[in-house]
């Protein structure tokens, strides 16, 4: 995946470039808004990571400028501001995701991978399949090895999200945001309990684990 990082803090940008590289991605860095805009215009990137406060051109203006020119590259906004309405303005300006500093790189990486436009083609599919697990979005049924599994509505939405991003790491906050539609920070790992309940239902009585815990990051649904 090709990632464009628009970030003026040299240390942070270098760290991101290296870390994305180690995760198997190619990252380019632009140190100000104008350069970032020029690079992004080429349209060769899969995901962009944009800091909000940039020299020469503000991050939000870069995104709005790209969007008005028909550039649909997914953008993750990085912000040190992190107030709730900042998040709203950021997403309204055309950002696809928003992360507040300080953040964990695993969180950023997971979000960037999910944003990857080449991978997000599952929206239109009505049936998700991962290994022997099958989820029908229309009839709301889940089967594993042809055996139907009964899920609560929330568990169904949780599994649906995990399956849409099968093979990718999803973090707890991503689950809270996308399955529960909340962006706050639960003090205890309430999400873990929901995931382990779901895991019980889709793994119990079957040979192989399918819902994996990625330590320090989150979860991944992946066929053995």
């Amino acid at each position, binding site marked *: 995946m090709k990632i464009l990082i628009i970030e003026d803090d040299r240390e942070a940008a270098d760290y991101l470039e290296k870390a994305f590289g180690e995760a198997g991605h190619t990252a380019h860095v632009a140190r100000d808004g104008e350069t970032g805009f020029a690079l992004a215009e080429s349209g060769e990137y899969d995901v962009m990571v944009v800091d909000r406060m940039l020299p020469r051109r503000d991050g939000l203006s870069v995104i709005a400028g790209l969007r008005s020119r028909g550039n649909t590259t997914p953008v993750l906004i990085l912000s040190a501001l992190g107030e709730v309405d900042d998040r709203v303005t950021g997403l309204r300006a055309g950002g696809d995701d928003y992360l*507040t500093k300080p953040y964990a790189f695993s969180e950023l990486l997971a979000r960037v991978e999910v944003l990857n436009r080449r991978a997000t083609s599952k929206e239109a599919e009505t049936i998700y399949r991962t290994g022997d697990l099958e989820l029908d979005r229309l009839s709301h049924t889940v089967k594993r090895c042809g055996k139907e599994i009964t899920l609560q509505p929330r568990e169904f939405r949780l599994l649906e999200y995990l399956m849409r991003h099968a093979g990718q790491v999803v973090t707890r906050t991503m689950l809270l945001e996308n399955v529960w539609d909340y962006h706050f920070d639960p003090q205890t790992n309430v999400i873990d309990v929901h995931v382990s309940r779901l895991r019980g239902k889709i793994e119990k009585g079957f040979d192989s684990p399918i819902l994996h815990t990625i330590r320090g990051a989150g979860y991944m649904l992946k066929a053995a």
Partner: protein
Amino acid sequence: MTLRLPAIMRTTAARLSALYFILFALCAIVLVFYMTSLSASMLTAQTMETINEEVQGLDRAYRRGGLPFLVRVIEQRSRQPGANLYLIADANGRILTGNVESLEPGVLESEGWTDRPFMYQRYGEGSSERRQPNVSDIEAPATSIETRHAAIALISRLPNQMIVLVGRDLGEPERLQGVVKRALTFALGIMAFGGLLIWYFVGRRALKRIDSVSDAGKRIMGGDLTGRLPVTGAGDEFDRLSENLNTMLTRIAGLNEGLRQVSDNIAHDLKTPLTRLRNRAEAALAGDPGEAGYREALEATIAESDRLIKTFNAILMISRLEAGYSAEASVRIDLAAVVHDVVELYEPAAEEVGVTIEAPDAGGSFFIDGNRELIAQALSNIVDNAIKYSSSSSQAPAVKVSIIEKDGETSVRVADNGPGIPDQSDRERATERFVRLEQSRSQPGSGLGLSLAKAIMKFHGGRLELLPGEPGLTVMMTFPKRRSE
């Protein structure tokens, strides 16, 4: 004294006194001059009327008995005490009769009213050496001034070109001016005295207190935050000012103390996990735990840092909320839906630790103005706490979340049946930053949960109350009445 004068002039009292003195003096002078000129012109008008009547009388006398009769009448009138001025002169201005011995040259050359007061000398008044008929100099030596007087006169010519002058001495307006001058001097004197009194009272007493206040201020600025401004007990403006400033100082000292406590707490609560983090990394490096061991150490490190980030985020959020950010994110939200979501989110986690969490259906929607995320955050912190503390309850641990509407205010009530917080002051302290009551030290947590919830409620114009439950603790999140639709 002369050296100290500029310093004195720098005090407000002296400036005020001087300013008042100058202002009042100017007013008095203007007023007095206006009054005198008014009275003087009135007196002059009166004088002119008298002269007019006199001239008419003389005119009648001349027509009846001709010049000899006129001369007789004039001589008769001249001798009366306090008489007007009378004079008959020939066509060349040589004085023939009357009570005027001499007058300013040129006066007799015109006809009608003299256009300005002139100087004259009566018979029998002038000193012998100054008996020449023409007194040319108005600014005559002082000795003769007493015998020379100012007058106005009506000059007319008889058919035979002889000049008749009837005039009146201006002594009365002059006396008036004298009186005015004395009054003015007296008044100015009184005012100067008043100015000094004002300076004494305002400057020496009132402004001295301002000085004492500013001295006390200097001491406090010097770092002595316990210092307070003097209050005399007189209950005047200065006392009120001092009292208000003292209240402000108390508040500042309180904030300062709070800040110090918070930074101590931050130092402590962040230092502990940071030290743990470091020790773990060090231990992993020192030994040779193998790849699995390294991995485990690194994962623990990440988990620890994540907790630190959480704590940091909570601190940042509290200070932002306390700074009060824009209410743009405030919209109409259904409190019942938020309660439902949070309870649903926590239910499995509660069950895991053996706590039943129930939220009786509120029966419909309860709309409030607010930020959904923030309210969910606050409620989740409270529910989280309730689960954590009720799990140690001796009886069946249960948390009950309900919505109450009372007096137009909507509240979310979270009640647990755990040990509660029996002490009132402890309940108050529990919402302070980083405060972890003794009983809770053993429980995991940052000590920020309730303070964040409190900050969120305050931000919404509501309040967070910790009440004693039966048993356990009841937390009330009360939202203010909605703005009009």
